[in-house]
């Protein structure tokens, strides 16, 4: 069942059309993956879902409710946790306060319990609980951002390039956590990534974006074995392909 469904979304930055009619869906309990190069519009898709940007056209439904144009604090209350790219923590608050802020919109008394859960996922955060988060390393800040999103008790998470700027070991660590959250909490996840290998390894269904459009979609298994994906995103090339791509042998541009 689709938890989140985008139908023909068009979003502009001023006069620039960043998304040109995107339709996609995220199924309950699955990791959906959105791949694409820089400037393809992946981040804009997530911002449009969470409400940081307003689509000019199209419809977004989340659990049978239309949410296009709803403010981000409201979509957060509905259960969509957006983890923006670039480890956006609250730099002068401690790790613990950051996590508490994640639960800001909740009125229940189980915040402490969830904090333990986050510390269980990320033991390193428990060690640094009283430290200002500005002094965490990049990887730890990314963990904090994910942990803070979990504090919302969301029913769906939007992850924007969690692997950005992390060492390969940390990338696989984060990937493991994402998989674990998905499995243990049956969390629906929409994952935006440039690290196609990591994303396709943990994802169930994938979309490929190019200049504001979805150009390909399939299960992650089949995407992995697709020629184009291997060539453009996974860096697998055979000699023959390489040879033909030499510019001297091309007769025309385009």
């Amino acid at each position, binding site marked *: 069942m689709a938890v989140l469904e985008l139908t023909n979304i068009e979003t502009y930055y001023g006069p620039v059309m960043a998304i040109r009619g995107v339709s996609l869906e995220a199924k309950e309990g699955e990791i959906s993956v959105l791949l694409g190069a820089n400037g393809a519009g992946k981040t804009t898709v997530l911002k449009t879902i969470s409400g940081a940007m307003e689509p000019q056209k199209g419809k977004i439904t989340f659990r049978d409710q239309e949410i296009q144009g709803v403010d981000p604090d409201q979509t957060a209350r509905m259960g969509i946790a957006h983890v923006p790219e670039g480890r956006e923590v609250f730099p002068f*608050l401690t790790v613990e306060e950051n996590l508490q802020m994640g639960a800001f919109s909740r009125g229940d008394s189980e915040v402490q319990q969830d904090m333990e859960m986050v510390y269980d996922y990320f033991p390193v955060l428990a060690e640094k609980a009283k430290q200002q988060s500005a002094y965490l390393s990049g990887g730890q800040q990314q963990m904090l951002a994910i942990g803070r999103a979990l504090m*919302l008790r969301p029913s769906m998470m939007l992850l924007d390039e969690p692997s950005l700027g992390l060492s390969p070991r940390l990338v696989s660590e984060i990937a493991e956590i994402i998989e674990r959250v998905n499995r243990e909490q049956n969390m629906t996840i929409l994952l935006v990534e440039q690290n196609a290998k990591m994303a396709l390894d943990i994802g169930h269904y994938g979309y490929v974006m190019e200049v504001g459009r979805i150009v390909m979609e399939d299960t992650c298994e089949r995407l992995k074995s697709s020629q184009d994906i291997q060539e453009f995103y996974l860096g697998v090339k055979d000699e023959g392909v390489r040879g033909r791509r030499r510019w001297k042998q091309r007769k025309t541009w385009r």
Partner: protein
Amino acid sequence: MEVLQLLVSGISQGCVYGLIALGFVLIYKATEMVNFAQGDLMMLGAFFAYTYLNLMELHFLVALPLTIFTMAILGAFTERVMIRPMIGEPHFSVLMLTIGLGFILRAAAGAIWGNEPRSLDLPYAGGVIDLGGLIIGYENLVIVIGTAMLCTLLFLFFRFTRLGIAMQAASQNQLAAFYVGIPVKRIYSLVWAISAGISAVAGILVAPVSLIDPLIGFIGIKAFAAAIVGGFGSLPGAIVGGLIIGIVEQFAGLYLPTGFSDVSAYVILLVMLLIRPEGIFATMQQKKV
């Protein structure tokens, strides 16, 4: 003794500057806008206190909280109708808007309460304590105590309450605050309310010392200098900057030729900008683009 006497009046004057500077800094930290009508909000607070105390003859323990409450509502209202539609517009437009707001408030106050100076009927005004030759007026004492109490209260609020921490969060990273479900727009209204409430306190405190008229808000410019000296964006800095300017002003009034008292605030500002442009308490991180 003369030095001590000057110090006392300098501190009490400095507290008033500090409180208005606090209002500047709060709004700047939260919304990155500078509200140049801050001094005029103080003037308005003083006039509301005048209305409740002198005209309606309420007990001052009722009238003062009522004044602060009225100003807080007015602050939130201003944010909602004037400032929020300007989100995303250039900073300069917002700046012009608040300067314009200052003009409107001064004219309105003149029209409603008249332009002649008024005094506030506060029960403590006029009394003095004599500490072996050092004369401290009750009103000066109240200014210092009131400022200290307000600062403690604000510190506790920002450090320990959920809402206070959420306000810090919203000022540190607006988008992330949105994403975790903090209602950032309502937080902004609240910041304006608190800031207007603080300037109301400043207005009440300063009223027994200098009479109230629609132009007393111009000390807001000196308070602005105080905020910069303290390091724009630092709450303790605002108070310290206010104190420095208040004290230096008093000494300049006595030991330097006539006129230096009024310009000393700006001299300090210029010197500060030359030797340490980030201010005494520079807490602002480099702005991320």
